[in-house]
C-alpha cells in the first residue's frame, strides 16, 4: 500500500522515507535546502567542518599520530609543547597530540553507540506509546506505564544516574554506552510520542485503518516515517551532549579505563597539574572537547532548521531573493 502524501506536515527526512519513487527528488531537495541554510548561516558550515574533521581524526589517527597514544615515557615527563611534542606530554610522558587524535575513536564510538541505541529503543517505543495512548484500557495502561517509567528515569539528575549505572555495570566503554543509552531513551520516547499523537489523527492514517491495515503496518509504514524527522534532527545534538557526558563520567573516574585516550579522562589526569603550571595536559583536551561539542551543536541546529518547514522555506526564499 502506498501512503497518502503528507509532506506538508512532515519533517525533512519524510520525503526520503516515504517511497523510493520520491526518494531521489526528495534527497536533492533536502540537500538544496541544506545548502541554502549553510549560506544563510555560514557558522553552521563550520559545524560540519568540525564534525567531519573530528571523524577524520578518529579514522586517520594511526597514520597522523606521531607517537603511540598509550605508551608511557618517563623521560618525557610533563614536557611543555615543543617541536618534539606539539601539544606537550602528560604526567606519564604520553604525547598529548597523539592522544588528542585518538580520543575521538573512544568518545565518538561511545556517543554514537549510546545515542544510536537510545534512538533505536526510544523511537519505536515512543511511536507505540503515542499510537496507543487513550485507546483501549490495556493499551492505554501500557502507554501510561511506559511514560511514568520515563518520568522516574528523568527524575534523577542525568549525571548521577549515569554514575549509578556505571557503578552497577562496572567501569568501561560498554558501561558508559549503556549509561548514555539509558539516559537518552526518554528524550526520544517523548519526542516520538508527541509527533505520533499529532499524526495519528490524520486522514491518511484513518484511511489506512479503514483499509484494514494492522497496527504494526500503520505504525511502521504510515506514521513512523512521517514522525521520525524531529528525532533524527535530535540525534546530532545528543551526540555532542553524549560526548560531553562521556568526558564528564571519565573526569570523575566512572568512565573509560586508563590509559584509553579520551578527552574527559585526559582532563581529569591533567587538571591537578594546572596549579603547578603545567596547563597543557588538561587545557588542550578541554579545547578539543569544547570544539567537538560546539560542532555537533551547530550541526544539530542546522538539522533543526531543516526539520522545520517554515524556517526551511524562509532560508530557501532568502537564497532565491539573492
Amino acid at each position, binding site marked *: 500500500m502506498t501512503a497518502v502524501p503528507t509532506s506538508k506536515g512532515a519533517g525533512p527526512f519524510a520525503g526520503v522515507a516515504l517511497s523510493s519513487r520520491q526518494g531521489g527528488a526528495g534527497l536533492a531537495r533536502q540537500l538544496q535546502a541544506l545548502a541554502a541554510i549553510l549560506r544563510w548561516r555560514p557558522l553552521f558550515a563550520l559545524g560540519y567542518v568540525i564534525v567531519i574533521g573530528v571523524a577524520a581524526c578518529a579514522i586517520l589517527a594511526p597514520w597522523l599520530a606521531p607517537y603511540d597514544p598509550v605508551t608511557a615515557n618517563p623521560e618525557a615527563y610533563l614536557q611543555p609543547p615543543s617541536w618534539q611534542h606539539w601539544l606537550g606530554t602528560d604526567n606519564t*610522558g604520553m604525547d598529548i597530540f597523539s592522544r588528542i587524535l585518538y580520543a575521538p575513536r573512544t568518545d565518538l564510538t561511545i556517543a554514537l553507540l549510546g545515542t544510536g541505541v537510545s534512538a533505536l529503543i526510544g523511537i519505536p517505543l515512543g511511536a507505540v506509546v503515542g499510537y496507543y495512548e487513550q485507546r483501549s484500557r490495556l493499551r492505554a495502561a501500557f502507554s501510561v506505564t511506559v511514560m511514568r517509567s520515563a518520568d522516574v528515569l528523568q527524575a534523577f539528575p542525568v549525571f548521577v544516574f549515569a554514575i549509578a549505572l556505571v557503578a552497577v555495570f562496572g567501569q568501561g566503554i560498554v558501561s558508559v554506552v549503556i549509561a548514555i543509552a539509558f539516559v537518552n531513551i526518554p528524550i526520544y520516547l517523548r519526542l516520538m510520542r508527541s509527533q505520533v499523537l499529532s499524526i495519528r489523527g490524520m486522514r491518511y492514517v484513518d484511511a489506512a485503518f479503514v483499509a484494514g491495515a494492522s497496527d504494526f503496518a500503520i505504525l511502521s509504514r504510515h506514521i513512523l516515517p512521517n514522525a521520525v524527522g524531529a528525532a533524527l534532527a535530535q540525534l546530532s545534538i545528543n551526540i555532542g551532549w553524549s560526548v560531553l557526558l562521556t568526558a564528564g563520567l571519565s573526569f570523575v*573516574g566512572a568512565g573509560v579505563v586508563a590509559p584509553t585516550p579520551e578527552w574527559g579522562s585526559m582532563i581529569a589526569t591533567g587538571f591537578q*597539574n594546572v596549579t603547578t603550571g603545567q596547563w597543557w595536559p588538561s587545557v588542550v583536551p578541554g579545547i578539543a572537547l569544547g570544539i567537538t561539542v560546539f560542532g555537533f551543536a551547530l550541526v544539530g541546529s542546522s538539522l533543526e532548521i531543516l526539520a522545520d518547514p517554515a524556517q526551511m522555506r524562509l532560508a530557501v526564499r532568502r537564497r532565491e531573493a539573492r
Partner: protein
Amino acid sequence: MTNGTNAPTALTRRDTLRLASLFAASTLAGDLIGGTAAHAATAGTLVVAAPGTPQSLDNEFDGSLGTIDAIGQLYDSLVAYKKIPDPKVPDVLREDIVDDPSLPGAAHLEGRLAESWEVAPDGMMLRLRLRKGVKSNWGNELTAEDVKWTWDRKFALNAIGGFQVGLMDLASPDAVKVEDRYTVSFHPTHPNPIMLKIQTHRYANIFDSTKCKEMATAEDPWARKFLESNSAGFGPYSLKSLVRGQQAVFTARPDYYLGKPAIDTIIYKEVPTSATRTALLQGGAVDIAQALQPLEIKQLGKAPGVTIETVDASSMMWIILNAKVAPFDKPAVRQAMNYAFPRDAVIASVFQNIASPLKGCMPSIYPGYSDAFDQYSLDLDKAKALLAEAGLPDGFKVEIAYNAGDPVQEPIALLFQTSLRKIGVELVLRKVPAGTYFNEVSAKKLPMLFFVDAPWTADPVFALRLYFYSNSFVDYSNYANPKVDEMIEAGSQMTDLAKRTELMLEIQKIVMADAPWVFVASPNFTMARRDKVAGFTYYTSNSINFADFSVKA
C-alpha cells in the same frame, strides 16, 4: 546620548564580562585566601591545612591522618624517643631510633608520663614508674590505674589495641599489674625485647580512666561514645571544638606537665584537595599544608615565604603480589615483575626525587635494615627469562587495583604497564574509590594492588612480622614461608640484640628473594610551612606534634 560624566550609560557586553571576571577573581581569592586569612598568622595561632578532620578521636577504631594527628596532641604516651638533628636536614629534629644494647630496651628513650623504667634482663617484665602530679584535661591526676584501664580497654575492645596486646605478648588483662599508685608493670608470656619500644607507639597513649569511667554506661563500659568526639588524656592540648568535615580547634593546656606549648591555638582545617592546600600555603592563609603532591612541593620550594623540609621517612609504597593468586604463586613470576618495574624512572618522574627507591622490605631508616639483598634494577631480559622459567614465555594478563585518592598511583601503574607490555604482560588498570580501597586490600583477593604503609615502631621484628608473618592480618600478599614464620617467632622472643639483628637480616634476604611485593618507593615526609613556623620534628608515625612548633613574631 552625550558622554557627560553624569549621564547614565548602558552596560555593554564588555563591561559585563569585566564585572564577571572581577567577581570570579574576588570569589576565588576569597575562597583561597580571604576565607581563612582571618584565622592565619595571628600570634599564638597555627593553621594547618589537612586532607581531613579527625573522623574519630578514639584511636581504637580509626587510623586516618586526622585522627593520628589529633591523638598526638590530646594524649601522651609513657615514654618517647630522644630527639636528634636529622643527619641530612640538620634544622629538622627526628627520633633517635638507633638501637643501643647498653640501654634498657636497647632504645634511646626519655620519660613522658613515666619518669623511670626498667626491663628485666630475661625480657619477661617491664616496670614503669609514673610522674606524680600529672593532670588530665579534666583535672584528674595520672595514676597506675589509668595505665591499667587503658590496657584493659585494649583487651576488651580488641581492635587496634588488640594488635598491640599481641605485640606485647600479654596473655590476659592480669598481665598488666598495678604495683602501687604510681607504678605499673607488664608481664609477657614469653621474653619480649620490644615491650618498651611499643610504649613509644603513637597509639600507646594513656586515658584518664577517672573521666572515662564517669562517662561510661552499662551498655558502653569503655566510654566509646564519649571518646569518639571528646578526649580524656594527659597531652599538651585539649579539644576546643570539632566540626567534622570542616575543622578541629585545639587549645594549649597551661597545666601541661612539660610546660604550656608555645602556640596557644591550633586550627586544623579540612582542605580535601592538595592543589587547594598548596594555594592556601602559598597565599599565606595557612601555616602548614599537609600531604602535598611531589610537583606541588617542588613548586612551593620556589615560593617566597614558604619553607620546604623533606626527610627520609618510615613510609613505604609497594605493589602487593598476591601469592595465592596465579601466576603470583610462583616466586619467579614475582621476581620478573620486579625486574620489569622502572623504579628509578618512577622516582625521578612521578616522585620528582622526593622519595628513594624501596630497596628493602622494611623502612630504610629502621635499625636492622639492609639494602644488600636488593637485586631488582630494571632488566627486561632477565624478567622475560624468569617468565619463561615459570612456564609463561608469552606473558599473561593481570589486573592492578589502585587508589583513586592517591594521585601518584595511576601514573606509576601506567609506567609499569608500558614496561610490562615489552615482556608480554598485559596490565589492566582498575581504579578503586578511596573510600573502599582498604576493603579491597584487606580482602586479600585481588592479584595486584598498590599499598602505602609504615610500621610505626622502629624495630625490624615489628616491621617484618607485620607484613611477612603468615598469621598477620597485615600480610596482604598472602605470603607464607614456614622458615620466615619460624625465624620471626624466634626473633620476637630474642633478647640478644646482635643475634636478633643477624636473624632479621636473614629474613630480609629470604623475603627479598621471594618478592611478595613489587618494591616501589620510600616516599619522604615533607613539611611545607610558612617561614615563620619553626620546630618541625619527624616521627616514625609520619604525623606532627603541634607542641613542637613555635611561630616567630
